[in-house]
């Protein structure tokens, strides 16, 4: 409790000093607001603020652990029943959170422990490899590598989908670092506000490549056994896949072999990989030729099923790892820009697209966009005690801290202490 009070007071001080920098989101008075207090794990929602100043005062007074507002607008956002709020429409939201997908760095910094048998380890697992049970406690960490992966997903979303395919005007896009392990992108285009959940699902499927039928794109096997593949001329996903396939075929053998073999990629067996590498040049020359033979896909060992496996792996590379329910749910809450994230102490930082390209949340050179708000100019330090068996290495502001083990008492820079305390792996002493 002492640690929570310490963090709450820090948040309060931050809001007091920076309340004028808390931005006003569009249609502010029609949004539902929600907060999670430090004291108990119960969301206070169905709140409405008619003026920005009242909202800022609320933040200063209550210094919540987490602060949200709705993607939707309502005529009476403070009505306690969702169906009586008077739904007026919802922005299109995208959430990219590395919690939901694999990154290689997780094998180094994410920890798990089985509640059933006590087995523990590093990496991203669904069930205990020892006892097979699903009761797992996880400690997910952040590093530059996984935050870069998340950033690249947002860049892919904008550059490969929203702009070229959906023709969304960049002025309508609002990008924000979530304050933890990802990014949000909110599209405030009035034309998109009235999309139903099903229509939003259709857009999400397009962006992720989920439920793509290769047959409908043209992949088919004739009774003679000849396989006809996809064509680059065809607009939509067919072209995307062919461009990626060509890109893959021009990579060196080492990378291509990794892509074909790795169990997180195509996961093909040794013989197929060997065969693919042998036919690589010929295949590339075929599919890029102007003749009809470009449609015939013939590589020894590659049945229709195997082609589909390879194409699925390519689709996974192209598609964006968005958290689907966030985009589909029209009543979803999203972190308020400029507020603080209670699990890191980092600020939810709004960014324009240009700023995003060079943005590094753990070591941001531009002070205007720095989400690490508790760095002391006077180089103040804080003593804390580690409360978890193992705390992974933390790289913040170019310095590395840890690993730490249970019971260790350490004196670390103020902002690092805020991070460890917020992550719930240390307590103040």
């Amino acid at each position, binding site marked *: 409790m002492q640690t929570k009070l310490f963090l709450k007071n820090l948040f309060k001080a931050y809001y007091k000093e920076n309340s004028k920098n808390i931005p006003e989101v569009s249609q502010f008075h029609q949004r539902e607001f929600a907060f999670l207090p430090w004291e108990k794990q119960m969301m206070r929602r169905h709140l409405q603020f008619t003026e920005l100043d009242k909202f800022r005062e609320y933040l200063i007074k209550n210094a919540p652990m987490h602060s949200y507002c709705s993607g939707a607008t309502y005529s009476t956002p403070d009505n306690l029943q969702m169906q009586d709020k008077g739904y007026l429409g919802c922005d299109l939201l995208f959430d990219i959170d590395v919690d939901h997908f694999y990154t290689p760095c997780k094998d180094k910094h994410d920890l798990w422990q089985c509640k059933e048998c006590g087995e523990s380890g590093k990496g991203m697992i669904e069930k205990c490899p020892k006892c097979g049970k699903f009761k797992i406690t996880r400690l997910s960490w952040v590093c530059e590598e996984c935050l870069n992966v998340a950033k690249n997903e947002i860049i892919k979303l904008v550059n490969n989908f929203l702009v070229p*395919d*959906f023709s969304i005007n960049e002025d309508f896009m609002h990008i924000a670092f979530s304050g933890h392990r990802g990014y949000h992108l909110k599209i405030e285009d009035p034309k998109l506000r009235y999309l139903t959940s099903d229509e939003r699902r259709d857009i999400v499927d397009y962006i992720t490549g989920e*439920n793509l*039928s290769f047959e409908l794109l043209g992949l088919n096997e004739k009774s003679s056994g000849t396989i006809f593949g996809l064509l680059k001329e065809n607009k939509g996903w067919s072209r995307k896949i062919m461009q990626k396939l060509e890109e893959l075929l021009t990579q060196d053998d080492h990378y291509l072999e990794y892509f074909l073999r790795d169990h997180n990629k195509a996961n093909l067996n040794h013989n197929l990989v060997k065969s693919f590498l042998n036919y690589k040049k010929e295949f590339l020359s075929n599919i890029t030729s102007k003749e009809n033979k470009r449609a015939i896909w013939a590589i020894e060992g590659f049945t229709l099923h195997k082609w589909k496996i390879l194409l699925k792996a390519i689709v996974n590379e192209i598609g964006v790892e968005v958290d689907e329910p966030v985009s589909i749910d029209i009543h979803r809450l999203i972190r308020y820009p400029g507020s603080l994230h209670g699990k890191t102490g980092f600020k939810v930082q709004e960014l324009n697209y240009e700023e995003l390209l060079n943005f590094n949340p753990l070591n941001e050179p531009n002070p205007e966009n720095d989400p690490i708000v508790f760095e002391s100019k006077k180089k103040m330090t804080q003593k804390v005690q580690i409360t978890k068996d193992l705390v992974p290495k933390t790289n913040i502001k170019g310095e590395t801290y840890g690993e730490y083990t249970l019971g260790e008492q350490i004196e670390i820079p103020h902002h690092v202490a805020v991070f460890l305390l917020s992550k719930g792996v240390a307590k103040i002493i």
Partner: protein
Amino acid sequence: MSIPYELVQRYPWLPSKNDYYSDIASREPTAFIKDVLIKYSNGELEARTFDIFKSAFQNLEEIRDYRDDELNVYLYTILKILLYVLNNKLIANRIANIYSKHSFKLLENESDYNIYEICKDLDINFQYYQKPIEYKLIIDKNFTSSKKAHFSLYFIDYLKLASGLRDDERKLLHNALEKGQVFLRKKELSRLLQELVRKKLIIEENTDVASIEAFKKKLLKIKEIEDLYENILNEWELKKEDFEYSFELQTYQGKELKESFPPCVKEIFRKIDEGQNVIHIERLFLVFYLHALQFSIDDIVNLFTKLPDFDRKQTEYQVEFAKKKGYSPHSCSTLKSLGLCKAKEYHDKLCLEGYHSKKYDEQRKIQHPLFYLQMKQYQKFKPKVKQKGDKKANAN
């Protein structure tokens, strides 16, 4: 009011109808009907209206006597008024299906110019290309063909129009999307417009029965409409059984099947029965399932006639092809992954809890919808074993 008058007469669901016929929108409905009946006192209005209902109840694929004249515009309004007072979802779906199918057939044969005018009138965000855009190339052995589009729709308009059509090929990710535009051929665009027409006519059953009754009382004071209404109801009484699949299937080959179908099959029948769109994978599953039960090709094809996009030739070909291939119906796990399993929605005990296997002396899950049917039939017709105490109870 730039749209040609003839198009409004052919497609009275176009918004410009209200500009040409401002009297329709502005007048009290019964007063409007009385006036129309004076104008067309030869009984033609009632005959043509009744014929649409009759054609729909006979499950025909187009309206027999559809004429694009002024009467057609009035007829459409009266049709909507009748559907309101009938307040019967099944009837409305039948009318919506036949009317929209007929519109599709007309639209398919329209000139590009007319399609352009229709889309503009409907306020659809679209683009027209004088020189068609090639968006899909198909190479098949030595034969090359291409799909070229004169039209493209803004993706939001596409999503709105395609939202009721859940088949895979209409999903955005299987279409040619570029710069916010989905490229479509006239046939595909016409199919989307068909769906728009269908949606204009379907109704959710109105629970405000008092208001409907009050209006109906007033409406049926008009003798011609009262007769027409009675005729429609009589015709429906005669034909409605045809729209309950149970009638056709429940005693198929001497077996009572209706109650024995698993929820996944019942759900598809329910949709067909209501004239709703059924996605490709649902159709396939049903065909495989009924083939496995030895249903004839004709019986299976006839089941699909109730669908909004029914195409007899295509359906016959597909049903025959499926039979030739001899595919088995999907297993429960596949149905689950395809989102077709409806065990939870139907609270089906056998699906959810399984059955007790005597052989293994344990509770086992149903793993295949055909086994479900077998199990249900077994449970229904198994010889009753006399329980201890039966004798005593009977004696008493």
